[in-house]
């Protein structure tokens, strides 16, 4: 197990270097080279911004030195200060992460809660009315633009029915509420964003779960189990479900970038002060230090999620640990 961990961690090094390189290339797409100013009268980025960028990232130095400087910054978690309010970027991001994480974890929980039983039931009753309905639902889920769904739900529950608030994460009188009042207030604000970020993922995982389960049910060991007269319940839950659930761990890890991406859209629609909203505001204000910071930290979070999923998988399935030992 330890050697597997060591190998898996060693794989991180090239990825981390790669992330630093790509983000470095992205910085160099920044407009406002001295030559641009003469060309464009309607200058979106003033010479002043360019100067600040040059000072921050050392853009006037040779490329090699620039990259080294960027690397040192990354290691020290120092992304400079925001152009908009001069606060350290890292601090701005760190205080936003908990909200985004809460929303994503809640929606991940919802996804698992519904996708697994629905997928399994569809597979067990392959071709039934229920299975057909769920296939339709999956197609709807894949085609639904999340921001449109958000608008519709906002219109219905917020504007028409006045049941739920449509923006922010707490009400005006939040400080005066009791503990339960506070929790309820958070819940009311988070309900729609969580539902919406769960919706697309739900379709994906349901389908994945169904495919897995259908595949597992065709295996020889299931036929053996049936042949020796085990109860259906035992076959489905003990023999089939365990094997069908295993790959879900990996898929959950892989779904992290999608969830983080989705938070940009849902957080900016519902004005939730999370990482996604921070990024959106930074993009709109061309606040480059914040953009770069969120970009890199987003990639790191993805990497961390995948690592966690791989390690969890290797705990759950010993074949992975042994198989990877044979490979050089």
């Amino acid at each position: 197990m330890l050697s597997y961990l060591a190998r898996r961690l060693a794989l991180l090094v090239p990825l981390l270097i790669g992330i630093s390189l790509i983000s470095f290339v992205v910085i160099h797409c920044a407009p406002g080279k001295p030559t641009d100013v003469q060309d464009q009268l309607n200058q979106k980025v003033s010479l002043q911004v360019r100067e600040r960028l040059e000072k921050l990232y050392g853009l006037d130095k040779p490329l090699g030195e620039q990259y080294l400087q960027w690397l040192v910054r990354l290691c020290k978690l120092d992304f400079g200060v925001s152009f908009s309010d001069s606060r350290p970027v890292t601090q701005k991001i760190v205080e936003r992460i908990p909200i985004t994480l809460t929303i994503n974890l809640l929606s991940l929980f919802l996804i698992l809660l519904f996708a697994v039983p629905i997928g399994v039931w569809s597979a067990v009753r392959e071709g039934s009315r229920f299975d057909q309905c769920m296939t339709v639902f999956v197609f709807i889920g894949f085609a639904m633009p999340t921001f449109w769904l958000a608008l519709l739900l906002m219109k219905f529950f917020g504007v028409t029915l006045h049941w739920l608030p449509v923006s922010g994460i707490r009400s005006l009188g939040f400080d005066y509420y009791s503990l339960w009042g506070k929790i309820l207030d958070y819940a009311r604000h988070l309900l729609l964003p969580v539902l919406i970020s769960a919706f697309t993922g739900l379709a994906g995982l349901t389908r994945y779960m169904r495919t897995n389960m259908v595949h597992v049910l065709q295996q020889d060991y299931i036929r053996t189990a049936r042949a020796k007269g085990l109860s259906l319940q035992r076959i489905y839950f003990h023999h089939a479900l365990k094997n069908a659930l295993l790959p879900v761990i990996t898929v959950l890890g892989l779904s992290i970038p999608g969830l983080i991406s989705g938070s940009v859209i849902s957080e900016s629609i519902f004005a939730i002060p999370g990482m996604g909203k921070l990024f959106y505001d930074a993009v709109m204000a061309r606040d480059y230090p914040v953009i770069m910071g969120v970009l890199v930290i987003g990639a790191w979070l993805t990497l961390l999620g995948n690592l966690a999923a791989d390690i969890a998988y290797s705990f759950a399935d010993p074949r992975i640990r042994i198989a990877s030992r044979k490979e050089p």
Partner: protein
Amino acid sequence: MINLLRNKLTLSGAIIIVLMSFFAVFAPVICHYQPDDIDIGNYLLAPSATHWLGTDLLGRDLFSRMVYGARISLSVGLVSIGIAVVIGIFFGALAGYYGGVIDTLVMRFVDIMLCFPSIFLILALVALLEPNIMVIMAVIGLTGWMGIARLIRAEILSLKERDFVSAARACGVSDITIIARHLVPNAIGPVIVSATLGVAAAILVESSLSFLGIGVQPPTPSWGNILMDAKSSLGVAWWMTLFPGLAIFITVLGYNLLGEGLRDTLMPRA
């Protein structure tokens, strides 16, 4: 092909796409109004015989804007996936055919690109460059080729051991010709499926960007930026919210249905 048409879902997907493309191509013939004809007096009219889908805040005909918006959404979808397919095939073939260090390098590069949450990378690049339609197509393409590269690599890894490849090599056919004439055409099935589904995804990304105000810029109409306008008139003008969203939904559904049908036909083993 017959198999493809027999499947009702696939057929309906194809019909949706043909219909939408028809709207996009013949937009000037179909529309009675110009998409940017401002008519302040007739703002936010509900759907009627004169304005089939109503008008927006500036009195522009929603139907015309949506038909012209179809041009934007469809072309962004197709062009950006075109770019992704070209890059994906190039890197995938390179990695699969040559193997070894090249394979490791290319596949690590793919892994690294996949670490970046796609919307983050796309938004950062669009913000740094310029939010115009060319940049959006390029950026969606540049951030969406990794899956296709993996598919092509996997196919070529198994194909290159086959006899016809050895035969070609024995005849002295160059590497490039083997890849371009013998390997890629045989590996293209899964790529077509993935590209078809990719068009759907790209249309969703473009409309999300435009909805956030970082995509196609007004006054050029796109389904996403019509919805952005709709957000401000959420309580009063249901047609502004309903129709553009429905258009995105139906188009994306069409490409997904076609993609799934193609998967069943081109990759029967899966």
